[in-house]
């Protein structure tokens, strides 16, 4: 079984985000980048499935400028067998990425596509669902447990009310949640080995995909600063404020 894992390069989760002065986006120059943490979990799961003998090959795929290859190398150092880089300087939105992934899936014909449930930069949580729809494949999102069997998968999903386990037919798209596993760090010998693993570079034109953005970003701004609190004189005053100002009771 071949597993394709889509990964995204994002600002490192530990970096303090700064909005650009012109409010068109966030500052990324000289900012430490890393693999989206949910994508790490997807890679980890795929590598574990291969180590268990369930999967035979793990292919990592990412789209974006040349720098994306650094993140693909991380995936290779964590254990992916090879990588596909779809090179583009264009702005990519969820639908564009889903279309790119569809083209790669058609070339690679994996049995399973794993993605992070969302990326920590735009928090869209759309790409996996869009890919499943474009492919006409079943989808299981927010997975905290994946059990693969012949032609199907039992996936435990984290839903608002608790956990839900569904059975889907393969091939399928699964997006993974935080509790699925704890991703490994890339050991030094594996970092060196990853240098020798192949990265297949394609362009958006070669894949004949239209990635033109459908959404326009009007403005990016910092969340409002938290206001100072007030002291209330009595419990009655507190209740009054909770009821009429905060409107929570």
């Amino acid at each position, binding site marked *: 079984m071949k597993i394709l894992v889509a990964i995204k390069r994002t600002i490192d989760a530990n970096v303090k985000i700064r909005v650009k002065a012109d409010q068109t986006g966030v500052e990324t120059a*000289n900012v430490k980048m890393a693999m989206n943490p949910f994508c790490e979990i997807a890679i980890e799961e795929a590598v574990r499935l291969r180590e268990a003998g369930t999967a035979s090959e793990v292919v990592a795929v990412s789209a974006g400028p040349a720098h994306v290859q650094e993140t693909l190398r991380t995936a290779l150092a964590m254990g992916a067998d090879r990588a596909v880089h779809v090179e583009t300087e264009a702005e990519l939105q969820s639908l564009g990425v889903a279309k790119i992934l569809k083209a790669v899936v058609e070339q690679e014909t994996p049995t399973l596509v794993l993605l992070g449930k969302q990326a920590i930069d735009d928090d869209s949580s759309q790409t996996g669902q869009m890919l499943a729809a474009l492919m006409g494949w079943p989808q299981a999102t927010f997975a905290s447990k994946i059990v693969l069997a012949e032609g199907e998968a039992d996936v435990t999903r984290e839903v608002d009310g608790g956990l839900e386990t569904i059975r889907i037919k393969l091939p399928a798209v699964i997006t993974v949640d935080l509790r699925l596993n704890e991703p490994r760090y890339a050991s030094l*010998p594996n970092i060196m080995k990853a240098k020798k693993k192949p990265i297949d570079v394609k362009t958006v034109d070669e894949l004949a995909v239209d990635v033109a953005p459908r959404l326009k970003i009007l403005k990016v701004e910092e969340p409002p600063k938290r206001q100072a609190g007030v002291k209330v004189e009595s419990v009655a005053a507190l209740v009054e404020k909770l009821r009429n100002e905060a409107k929570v009771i």
Partner: protein
Amino acid sequence: MSEFAGAREIRFQLYDLLDTEALATRARFSGQGRDVYDAVLDTAERVAAEYFAPHTRAADLREPWLEDGKVTLLPEVKAALDAFAAAGFLGAHHDEALGGLQLPWTVTQACLSYFQAANIATTAYPFLTIAAGNLLARFADEAQQRRYLKPMLAGRYFGTMCLSEPQAGSSLSDIKTTARPRDNGSYALRGTKQWISGGEHELAENIVHLVLARTEGAPPGAKGLSLFIVPRYRVNDDGNRGTANDIALVSLLHKMGYRGTVSTILNFGENDRCVAYLIGEPNQGLAYMFQMMNEARIGVGLGAAMLAHAGYLHALDYAKTRLQGRHPGGKDTTAPPVAIVEHADVKRMLLAQKAYAEGAMALCFYAARLVDDEMTAPDEAARQDAGLLLELLTPICKTWPSDYGPRANDLAIQVLGGYGYTRDYPVEQYYRDNRLNPIHEGTNGIQAIDLLGRKAGLEDGRALALLSARIAATCQEAFATQGLTEHARALEHAVATMRQVTETHLRALAAGKRNEALANASLYAEALGHVIVAWMWLRQALVAERRLAAAAPPEADYLRGKRQACRYFFAYELPRVAPLAAILERMEQTCAETSPDWL
């Protein structure tokens, strides 16, 4: 950014200052590059954050203890060391033939720096093992390497260095431990060794002690010392662990800091059954050991720098969030209080910490780069120059960071005020941990005598001339850079002053006045250290000036910080050289001429 070390800072040191990625053009490092080095640093930061940092305080509160006669440590220590070994850090710099990855020493030291900042006490175990391993890789024979070094690189065996004895600390020529030849070429060892870090524990299958001892009939003094491999458990021919090797734990030592590192007194051969194996030639022990010591000294300096850095980051974060007081010029007492980072005196304390920590880091990484250059620079002359400069700089890499690192931690405590004095905040532990660094691996007083008595006049002064030429080259660049010309002038002047002072002392040494000439060696080390760190700051400021025009915040602020810390060093610190030089130049003998009876 982790809480204990700045990823931007370490990358600035490695790439912006030292152009480390250029090393990948050398045959030994071919196929590597910045992507590999970044990935390696990321793994170091991650393992340090997940496995080392979380138990730093717990290991300080719970020193190693004896349980059923066995040295016991918090289980987190073993988990951390297993992760360190599994990630491949123990052998990363070694030859591929030994199972290593041939990473540059500069890069592996940068990795180490993350661990030192996260948890210096737990890092001491692999620090010693790596140092002992390097010694074996260089001087042990093939069979010894197979038997002891290979398991050390895999993290199965740990290493120690056993030099000091109760009566012989700084003075190694007084070592009494003896080695008597046995029939089969090995030796029977007998003696007591003290301050042995990692001397006994159950963290590894075996411990490989590297022990200085005197063979029967060897000449007295340091010339009669030989170096031995002494395993805690004998190793059978098939590589399996054999019987215990007659090494008794006399006592655990209870320290002010570094409390997670077990420190021991060991008795070798109480029952005359302690087997030792000679490394290399007899009577060459101290020369071999100095290979290990020199490397360890730079590592000690780097550890001191990283503890200073960790304390600075904590104090900085505190100063930016702690609201207290108003500006002295403000008249409105009802105005809201400001963050204490707004106060000039707090800024002074933060700038001093930054100047000490990042200046010391620059010095130690520069030395690490010299280690790489000595081994792999393309032409022979460059390799020789690197080796010579390294010899001169090694005692300063040990003394300056370990002198000024604790001062930085002292200021971090001061920034936090009463909170800094409590165990609820990490800065008091940084101070206690860092206070070891002026003491171990050769006290700073001994280093200073080595610097002035041996290194300053090395190769008829060629080492110092080489250093001066490199500083002059930096000054030339600075003269051509707006805003840095005054610094360049001040540094040139300070170098000339130190060369004059050095001349005076070398003349006195040549005239046989050793006692007089070496009486103020510590002042000499401090003054020369200050000049060299000023040079390190000018190098950093030059990079900042070049980059600033094209930089946006937060990078621009980071670079302005570099420029400002350089300005601080030249305004507040470099001027300390002149009064030190004046005392040195007149060879002040107040201390030397003081009778012990008067004290």
